[in-house]
């Protein structure tokens, strides 16, 4: 069974290895220069309260166009890898056999359907995880100077925070779990639907919904967030809506993930004092001064940067458990004769 799995999966293995090899070559050629740029930027020895943000910004501005391109390409690749694995490795695994009727050949050798699927699932899932793992390790290593600088100056144009939704999915070990999950999802869809193309569509739809739902609905609550109650910096006020103030966070937890920020009054209630007489007169300066005299504060709810790995482990555990549940579903499904 191992031989057959390998033989049927050979082309994909070669393709994946080629992608890894080309990427490794490109990153190995450009990585040391990027690391050197970081080492000579002074960020490593900067003072957080004095010049870190400036040095980080200077470093990010000095990135070559190739480096910037590679950085975002790498993120895109880590987003794409689980999807590609689910769609092209997972969905056809059972569906293609049923479509081409080769399941009638495969399931009538001296190997039970359960064992046939178990071996295929295990080997291909391990390959998917190894591939994504190597991809993640290489890209995380190469991108680490940019990631570190970004954490020091989150307001820079290209800065992404690795704990925040956009970058989180493309760093650490989470991509490995996503790959395992997407693969199991594809196999399950193919086994239940029996046809490759609809199974691919179903895999894409379900995976997209889950990848959107996870950072917005579930991940923020995996650990109780931290709170910061700080004076509102008037420079952060961006507008007035009825009686409340709109403002960007006055406090940026370095490398942290801001879940919400709300303007509050000194008693801790949502700030409702923006309809001062000065504001009704539409004189912006006086309006601002009148609001400042009320000492509005800001409540910022966030996940600190130090929890990155805790979140990575939680996230990975969740997706690996989901992958195992799906694999169990497939094995249960295939045990009974259903498709002739």
């Amino acid at each position, binding site marked *: 069974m191992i031989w057959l799995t390998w*033989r049927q999966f050979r082309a994909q293995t070669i393709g994946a290895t080629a992608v890894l090899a080309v990427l490794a070559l490109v990153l190995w050629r450009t990585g040391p220069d990027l690391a050197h740029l970081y080492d000579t930027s002074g960020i490593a020895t900067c003072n957080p309260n004095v010049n870190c943000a400036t040095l980080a910004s200077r470093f990010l501005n000095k990135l070559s166009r190739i480096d910037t391109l590679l950085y975002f390409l790498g993120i895109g690749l880590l987003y794409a890898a689980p999807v590609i694995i689910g769609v092209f490795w997972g969905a056809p695994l059972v569906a293609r056999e049923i479509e081409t009727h080769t399941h*009638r050949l495969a399931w*009538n050798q*001296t*190997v*039970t359907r359960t064992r046939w699927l178990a071996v295929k699932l295990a080997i291909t899932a391990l390959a998917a995880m190894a591939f994504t793992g190597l991809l993640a390790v290489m890209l995380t290593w190469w991108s680490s100077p940019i990631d570190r600088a970004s954490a020091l100056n989150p307001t820079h144009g290209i800065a992404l925070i690795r704990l925040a939704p956009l970058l989180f999915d493309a760093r650490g070990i989470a991509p490995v779990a996503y790959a395992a999950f997407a693969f199991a999802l594809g196999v399950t869809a193919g086994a239940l639907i029996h046809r490759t193309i609809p199974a691919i569509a179903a895999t894409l739809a379900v995976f997209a919904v889950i990848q959107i739902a996870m950072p917005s609905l579930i991940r923020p609550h995996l650990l109780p967030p931290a709170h910061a109650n700080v004076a509102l910096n008037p420079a952060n006020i961006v507008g007035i809506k009825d009686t409340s103030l709109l403002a960007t966070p006055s406090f940026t937890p370095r490398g942290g993930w801001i879940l919400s920020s709300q303007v509050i009054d000194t008693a801790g209630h949502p700030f409702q004092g923006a309809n001062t007489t000065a504001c009704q007169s539409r004189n912006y300066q006086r309006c601002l001064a009148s609001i400042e005299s009320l000492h509005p504060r800001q409540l910022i709810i966030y996940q600190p940067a130090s929890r990155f790995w805790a979140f990575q482990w939680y996230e990975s555990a969740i997706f690996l458990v989901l992958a195992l549940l799906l694999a169990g579903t497939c094995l249960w499904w295939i045990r009974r*004769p259903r498709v002739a």
Partner: protein
Amino acid sequence: MSAVLQTRGLGKRYRQLQALADCTLSIPAGRVVGLVGPNGAGKTTLLNLAVGMLAPTSGTIEVLGAKPGSGSAQLARVGFVAQDTPTYAGLSVADHLRLGAHLNPGWDAALARDRIERLGLDPARRAGKMSGGQRAQLALTLALAKKPELLVLDEPIASLDPLARREFLDSLAEFVAVHRVSVVMSSHLVGDLERVCDYLIVLVASRIQLAGEVTELLASHRQLTGPSRDPATLPAGWQVISASRTDGQSTLLVRTSGPIDDPAWAASHVDLEDLVLAYLSRAARPGQRPALDAQP
């Protein structure tokens, strides 16, 4: 005890469609069984039930004394060549033999190699580039080299040209003679089965119309020509399968165990094709109950 295929009241229903109903069979070992019937009669369903690709919705089925597809030991004992003889288009002939060797502990590598050589198949050739006949031969080779006790072949020759058909059947007959394996094969062409089969099952509209040893079936059926007569006056032991009337003359196909001793009737033997056609057309006549009593 030595039945290769034993069913009792076997039925398979797909939502609205009753694909197989009330099928009771007991096929002894060592036979080459022909399963005949029109398209959609339920032949494939019966064979898929026999190899465990389908589960019955009613009744029971035992193959070589065990539940079909119930484990690797049972899988090893049954070789199956499915309808349209599936092979992996991207794999070469040699790859298919490797597949067989890796997946079957009882694999006879020499047998497989010899057969491929004798058939003149290029081991390096991909299955996707071969003709239907070559693919069928490759699929049969895989099933044979597994050294099963029972071979189940579902319309293996339907898509082949006459020459390839003959080669396929000859190579099958040769194998059966040497290795004493039981075979159940379906076809909607009686002529093909006559060459190799010694046991016959006629399946029409999801029900079994006739089942038995070919020699017994031929011995117990007679074509009779004689004066037209009221069917009620025919001897009690006669079961009329088909009847036609022209110019005061009747032609009957009857099943009877006794001799035909009425001189008014001119009796002649029937061949397998006439026999099967008579049962097929009887089952197709409206209002005709399936002849459950036609079973052995």
